[in-house]
């Protein structure tokens, strides 16, 4: 069935990484990885040594996961903090001002972020933001803002307008309306946006690469690239694969848990944006 093919195509490479990560190094390089390969073939020669290698390294692999998580959470929090009021203010605007800003935001969301690394690097150097994990939250938030604002504004536009009128008449000021009426109703959209932003910051590479040089502070993407670049001749593919699997695990979990929110966030934003 076509669905099976799609499944295989999507999961194949990752599953192979899983398989590879569980094979001992010599088995990997000693021939084709088929059923009849040395090292016992499929049903023999499993090992967790690749994983133990990674976890025993200095710094241990889970350190990178932690760093990415810290940056991810900080970046997401900052993004939401800025995007929610901005979306609210934007929704109050009318006519050319609103559409103009929306068009600019759309253009910004298209921008390939890699192009910004040089200027941002200069900022980092001048302001001493290098090698500070939390400092990464700033550019990450800025890069996620366009999409976040677009999504949140679309969600706000969906709410019945009389709701805010009623709250206004009851004497609620703008911030009170936001807090008591709008935010609770926006919760699903906020959740979807937060997840998308988190995914982005987990995946971001050029800025993490140029802002952080200290090994123990590397985020996952940068660490993985370093592993890849480090050894040119003796290639520890088992370790690679293990790193791939470990690096993917948190996101796989996130995806499993929030799949619906992610899909709806993207499609809703696309429909209304």
């Amino acid at each position: 069935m076509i669905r099976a093919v799609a499944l295989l195509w999507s999961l194949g490479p990752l599953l192979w990484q899983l398989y590879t990560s569980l094979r001992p190094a010599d088995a990997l390089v000693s021939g084709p990885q088929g059923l009849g390969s040395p090292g016992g073939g499929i049903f023999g020669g499993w090992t967790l040594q690749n994983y133990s290698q990674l976890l025993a390294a200095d710094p241990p692999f889970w350190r990178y996961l932690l760093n990415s998580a810290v940056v991810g959470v900080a970046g997401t929090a900052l993004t939401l903090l800025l995007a929610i009021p901005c979306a609210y203010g934007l929704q109050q605007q009318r006519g050319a001002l609103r559409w103009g800003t929306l068009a600019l935001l759309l253009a910004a969301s298209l921008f390939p972020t890699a192009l910004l690394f040089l200027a941002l690097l200069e900022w980092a150097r001048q302001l001493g933001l290098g090698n500070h994990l939390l400092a990464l939250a700033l550019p990450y938030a800025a890069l996620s803002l366009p999409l976040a604002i677009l999504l949140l504004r679309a969600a706000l536009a969906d709410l019945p307008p009389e709701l805010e009128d009623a709250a206004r008449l009851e004497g609620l000021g703008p911030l009170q309306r936001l807090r008591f009426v709008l935010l609770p109703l926006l919760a699903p959209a906020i959740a979807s946006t937060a997840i998308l932003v988190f995914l982005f910051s987990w995946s971001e590479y050029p800025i993490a690469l140029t802002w952080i040089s200290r090994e123990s502070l590397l985020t996952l993407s940068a660490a993985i690239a370093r592993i890849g670049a480090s050894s040119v001749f003796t290639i520890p593919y088992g370790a690679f694969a293990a790193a791939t699997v470990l690096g993917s695990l948190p996101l796989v979990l996130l995806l499993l848990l929030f799949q619906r929110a992610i899909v709806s966030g993207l499609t809703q934003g696309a429909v209304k944006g």
Partner: protein
Amino acid sequence: MTAWLLMLPALTLLAVVFLAPLARYAWLSAHATSVLTALEPVANGGANWLRLAQDGRFWQDAGQTLRFAAVSVGLELLLGLALALLLRGPRGGRAAGGGLRTAVLLPWALPATVMALGWRWIYNEPHGPLNSLLIAAGLPPYPFLSTPASTWFAVVVADVWRSTPFVALLLLAGLQAIPPELEEALVLEGADRWQILRRLLLPLLSPWIGLAALFRLAQALGVFDLIQVLTGGGPAGSTESLALYAYLNAMRFLDFGYGATVLLATFLLLLLPGLLWLMWQRRAGSAA
């Protein structure tokens, strides 16, 4: 008035991060800032730009990046459409369940560098899985990543694998916006699936396709993560992208002035899909 106050912090940050760099690049590109000048900017008129115009490597990279973008996005649109149709399920049938959707989304959700590394192994000669399959089929192993002719396509495959879900999701949204009655009406008139696709779905999906193409083209022209980790630009610079070239200039050769020039040139190149899209929108609008 409060509306502006609310928008200010976000808009300020955006201006700082998006607009200021461009201005900075323009300034830098008009100065020489390299090891030769002890990393101090020295005005040099348009020397950087002259150099760019004559820089064979830049133009080669530009061509490679364009080719990569065009082929990748083209494939992604095709496969994305197929995937979207698959996820939607047959008319009146059940749409794809959460499990399939999760699996399909996975490639896009994973960090680019992580899977780039994975692909390096998959393409590995002679031990990687692809070559293992070839060997098992009795064919000679093929050095995917060492032959210029095949490397760029290998990169395309990796990018298509990663980005198709995004396109598929976008197109799925578009498909779901089409009222089922329209399809039913066509079915009653005796149209088969291909005709429905061609005459109804594709025309109605065209704004979505345009949007997806715009997004993906812009991102593909700025490709960096994938190239740097998967091929490092090799073999012999045959997969080097513009962004990577700029990075090398700035970080390895420490020529900030020239690096900024390359970046600015790439940005200008980026405006191309934007313009194309605007033209296409206008044409589509007037044809309607």
